[in-house]
């Protein structure tokens, strides 16, 4: 029988499994060791030629495939590994029979250049979309359809893990991973499901993806040395570094988890989200949407700013984001902000884009469990305009019971999660 309820009378949402893969390695242990040692996973890209590009570095995950692969294939592989770790830790269900729904943040997909070239190779005469269509009509390339439909990755994950119902593939740009978690929380609170597998994954660093961000002047061009390029909150920050990875969380009705004797790793206590109609890539100058998203998340959790011990920053290392995030945090936390630790995992793993909210939620729970805050590395040139305790360069021991994890994205997407330690033994 369900007996535990939050302050609003809803089921508590427990976390019983966590999994992560980033450029730092596969699994929680490898990542935690590197993150708390202040190591960077950013390196020179050798997946594709970078000649002529302003940015030639990234946090690519290069240890999973021997041959060539597409973004959806890598995204699926990353998600599979993270989910295997999370579901394994949780001990929920049976192999291939996850007793709950699937919420997945996946990068938008489209047909990639090598596949288009493969079609083009078969064409005599000029290449245009009509001739590509004629090549497709031979139905010799049928597998490409399943590879490049938007619902493909989540469908394969649903098959592999045996999740129930209609899997959700979602995007809220760079806050997608947090939205996947939020949707799992909401489904459990509604009583639609007692467990949810929430995943954010992104393995989409290829030439065109990098060039698109580059053309928006969003990426750091300080390629040398690669590991120093991501420098959130520093005065000389000049853009984000693309990263790849996946984070997976098993969410569960707290009472459901208790009944089966699962170890409770933490609670997703609150979620806040706000839209921003100011501009496609820039946030409202007053920071109101980000401020309200944090305040909503705290209110949803029944907590106040004073309850927060640590902020897991969005902290992209772009001039705009870090300034706006610092301003918004100052508005929410007031004078406390001078002493409230805030650090950016992206200083080490880059911006894992669609996956970031989930990857960073996993790291936030590890921060709570281990009473150790991963640093913001490359903080050698502080930006005096944004005075923050960024946990510079070295991990710090601290008792952390409540974390707010921020995710902000293009298109006015602002999503904040309040993540807490498990309740004291009841």
């Amino acid at each position, binding site marked *: 029988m369900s007996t535990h309820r939050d302050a609003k009378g809803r089921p508590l949402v427990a976390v019983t499994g966590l999994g992560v893969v980033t450029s730092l390695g596969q699994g929680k242990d490898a990542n935690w060791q590197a993150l708390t040692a202040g190591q960077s996973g950013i390196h020179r890209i050798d997946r594709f030629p970078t*000649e*002529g590009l302003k940015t030639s570095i990234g946090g690519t995950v290069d240890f999973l495939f021997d041959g060539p692969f597409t973004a959806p294939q890598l995204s699926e592989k990353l998600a599979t590994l993270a989910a295997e770790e999370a579901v394994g830790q949780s001990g929920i269900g049976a192999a291939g029979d996850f007793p709950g729904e699937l919420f997945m943040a996946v990068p938008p997909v489209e047909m990639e250049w090598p596949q288009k070239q493969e079609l083009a190779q078969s064409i005599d005469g000029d290449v245009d979309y009509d001739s*590509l*269509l004629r090549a497709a*009509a031979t139905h010799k390339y049928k597998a490409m359809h399943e590879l490049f439909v938007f619902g493909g990755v989540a469908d394969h994950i649903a098959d592999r893990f045996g999740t129930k119902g209609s899997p*959700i593939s979602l995007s809220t740009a760079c806050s997608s991973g947090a939205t996947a978690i939020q949707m799992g929380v909401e489904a459990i609170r509604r*009583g639609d499901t007692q467990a949810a597998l929430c995943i954010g994954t992104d393995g989409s660093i290829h030439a065109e993806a990098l060039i698109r961000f580059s053309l928006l002047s969003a990426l750091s061009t300080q390629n040398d040395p690669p590991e120093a390029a991501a420098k959130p909150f520093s005065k000389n920050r000049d853009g984000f570094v693309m990263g790849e990875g996946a984070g997976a969380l098993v969410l569960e009705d707290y009472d459901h988890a208790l009944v089966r004797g699962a170890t409770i790793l933490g609670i997703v206590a609150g979620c806040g989200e706000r839209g921003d*109609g100011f501009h496609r890539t820039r946030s409202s100058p007053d920071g109101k949407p980000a401020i309200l998203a944090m305040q909503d998340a705290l209110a949803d959790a029944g907590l106040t700013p004073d309850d927060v011990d640590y902020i897991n920053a969005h902290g992209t290392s772009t001039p705009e984001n870090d300034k706006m995030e610092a301003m918004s945090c100052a508005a929410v936390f007031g004078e406390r902000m001078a002493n409230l630790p805030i650090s950016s995992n992206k200083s080490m793993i880059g911006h894992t884009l669609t996956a970031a909210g989930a990857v960073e939620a996993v790291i936030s729970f590890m921060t709570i469990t281990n009473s150790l805050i991963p640093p913001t590395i490359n903080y050698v040139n502080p930006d005096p305009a944004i005075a923050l305790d960024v946990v510079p360069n070295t991990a710090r021991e601290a008792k952390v019971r409540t974390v707010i994890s921020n995710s902000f994205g293009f298109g006015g997407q602002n999503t904040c999660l309040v993540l807490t330690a498990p309740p004291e033994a009841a």
Partner: protein
Amino acid sequence: MNRRDVVITGIGIASSLGEGVEAHAAALGAGGPPVVDTESFKPYPLHPLKPLELDRQIPKKSDQRQMEPWQRLGVYTAGLALDSAGLKDDAEAKSALQVIVAAGGGERDHTVDAAILEGLRGANEPGAFLNERLMSDLRPTLFLAQLSNLLAGNIAIVHGVTGPSRTFMGEEQAGVDAIRTAHARIASGQSDLMLVGGAYNAERRDMLLLFELGGYLHRDDFQPVFERENAPGLITGSAGAFLVLESAERAAARGAKAYATLKHTDAARSRREPGTVRSALDNLLGGFGPVGSEALAISAATGCAGITAEEAAAIAAAAPSAKRIATGDLVGHGVEAAFPVSVALAAIALSAGQAREAIVTGAGHWRGEGAAHLVQA
């Protein structure tokens, strides 16, 4: 948990038939004929969008330029929905209005792609060549016009909807899950007001290419959805639909007109084998309880082999006396928008008194099954 009634208080729709509730009510009553273009994308027929006067919903040319056709269509129909719900000028409501969009992705620049592919065939250093051409030929803002979640982003910018948005992807099922989730949020009390829908631009060869790779396209002349056994496949259509869903209490309190009550929406994912679409839809429709004799069945069926007949059988079993209308026969198949358009058509029919009750079904061309149940408000 107490389930609250959910009503549809706003409908925005545009397609090859034109825009708005009246144009589509007339087509539902008359049953056709559809508007089909068999020449422009030969051998693939499709239903082209009847041109919109964009300025009416997207006043700034600068905003229009920042979007691609699928985004403009979505922003336009979202605006129609807000107008019809009487919310366009209600800043307070719009600041709390939550949005779920079912979206695909942006259109490729077909000319650039073709030129690059041509050049790659003879390039000594294909990687460097590709980099050089993409750096010089891609429009910087094209990326934003392509990003899936930027339809929602543009709804926020153009219409001042500053509530949070979520974008679902995954072809037809994105549209089903968008409406299912919006309905569940209101029914459970997590939200009072939602804007939900999708838009699809069929007039692009890159999407035809994706479907043709899998062998999912119908060729040559138009044939009705349920009569394509000899040449099964999709005939896509440009279409967009957005709905304002509202708790019945909120709608009553502000005196809003309800087009219909959305009683249920549910979704499934069968591992496609012969018969699985039938049984998935049987289960979904069975969960809605008995369907009355004066019902309407709107089907978002694709026309694809096997699954279309299975959908027809499920409809016949659940609502044997219902009048069946295929959305595809009116406006073509709108992929992510197919289910939202179909629910909009059902609500329009109920509101026009063409039926007292409606079921909506849809099996995605590759994955996903969905169904909804509406009654007169």
